[in-house]
């Protein structure tokens, strides 16, 4: 039964999205990759004519590592009452994939907007969509290596992974990350503790 709480994935020890409270009143359902295409086509036939967004999430601590999320919108059929028009029905379809060997069927022939959205997911996460007409990178340069939005990708880029923060070296930073005035959190805590003790005594 679809509910507003994210259903847990079968067979995973921890499933972070199912531990979260519902954020809105959209219904959420989980689909296996093998049943995904049939389910999406059925939903489109049911009236979910709009794919609002298609995204992926990386949970590195979970076995099917990625969650591909389809945000669907059911527009009211004409003629519709004012209440119907104001509140189209929302549905979120989640599909757990591992990313390396699982390939998802493409949704671009069901909703055209999935074309570039799937390219973006491929570019940033590395999830391959089978049947896609033109699956290549869209945001990163075409010869970029690596999938930047995975949690194990260095934020500053592989070339600058080891250079210190801040990117420029000041004489006043002995180690990168030391504030030049020496006011670290530990020093401030010591200061407060000392002030309390002095105030008490």
């Amino acid at each position, binding site marked *: 039964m679809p509910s507003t709480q994210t259903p847990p994935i079968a067979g995973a020890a921890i499933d972070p999205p199912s531990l979260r409270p519902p954020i809105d009143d959209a219904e959420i359902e989980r689909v296996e990759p093998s049943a995904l295409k049939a389910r999406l086509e059925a939903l489109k036939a049911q009236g979910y004519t709009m794919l609002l967004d298609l995204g992926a999430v990386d949970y590195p601590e979970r076995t099917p590592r990625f969650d591909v999320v389809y945000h669907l919108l059911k527009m009211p059929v004409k003629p519709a009452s004012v209440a119907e028009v104001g509140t189209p029905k929302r549905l979120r379809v989640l599909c757990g994939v591992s990313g390396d060997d699982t390939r998802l069927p493409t949704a671009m022939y069901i909703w055209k907007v999935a074309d570039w959205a799937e390219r973006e997911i491929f570019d940033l996460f590395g999830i391959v969509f089978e049947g896609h007409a033109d699956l290549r990178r869209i945001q990163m340069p075409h010869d*970029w290596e690596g999938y*930047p939005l995975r949690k194990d*990708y260095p934020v500053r880029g592989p070339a600058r992974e080891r250079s210190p923060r801040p*990117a420029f070296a000041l004489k006043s930073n002995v180690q990168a990350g030391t504030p030049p005035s020496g006011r670290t959190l530990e020093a401030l805590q010591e200061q407060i503790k000392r002030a309390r003790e002095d105030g008490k005594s």
Partner: protein
Amino acid sequence: MEVGPGQFLLARLDDVARWAQSSSVWPLTMGLACCAIEMMSVTAPEYDIARLGSEVFRSSPRQADLMIVSGRVAQKMAPVVKRLYDQMADPKWVISMGACASSGGIFDNYAVVQGVDTVIPVDVYVPGCPPTPDGLLYAVNLIQQQIREGGRGGILARS
């Protein structure tokens, strides 16, 4: 320049040429991100860069002599900026407007080039996020000062 007796005005050709160049610096629109909004407001009547000589912002690099890099330079955009800079005719100057163009700004990540001066030589850096329009006008003034003092471009401006 001196006005001689009669109707003669004597000056060095260099000075006249530099006066002409500095009085009509035409920028190339390289509005990449949010700083472009401030660059647009510099062209608006309140700050009005046209009174400093930048009457038009040319879209073609062949017709511009100042490139105002305003905004984040993405990794994907960097070769494009380089190509447009190469297509500009000499003498040319570059203003790096804003924190992102000067050093990467708050975007210390894989996607943003950490300073456009890794790609093209810059003459004036304007700090700010975004810099106020008068900051950009001051940078244009510095470029004009460089031009009048004989800078070809590539010399850091004196503050």
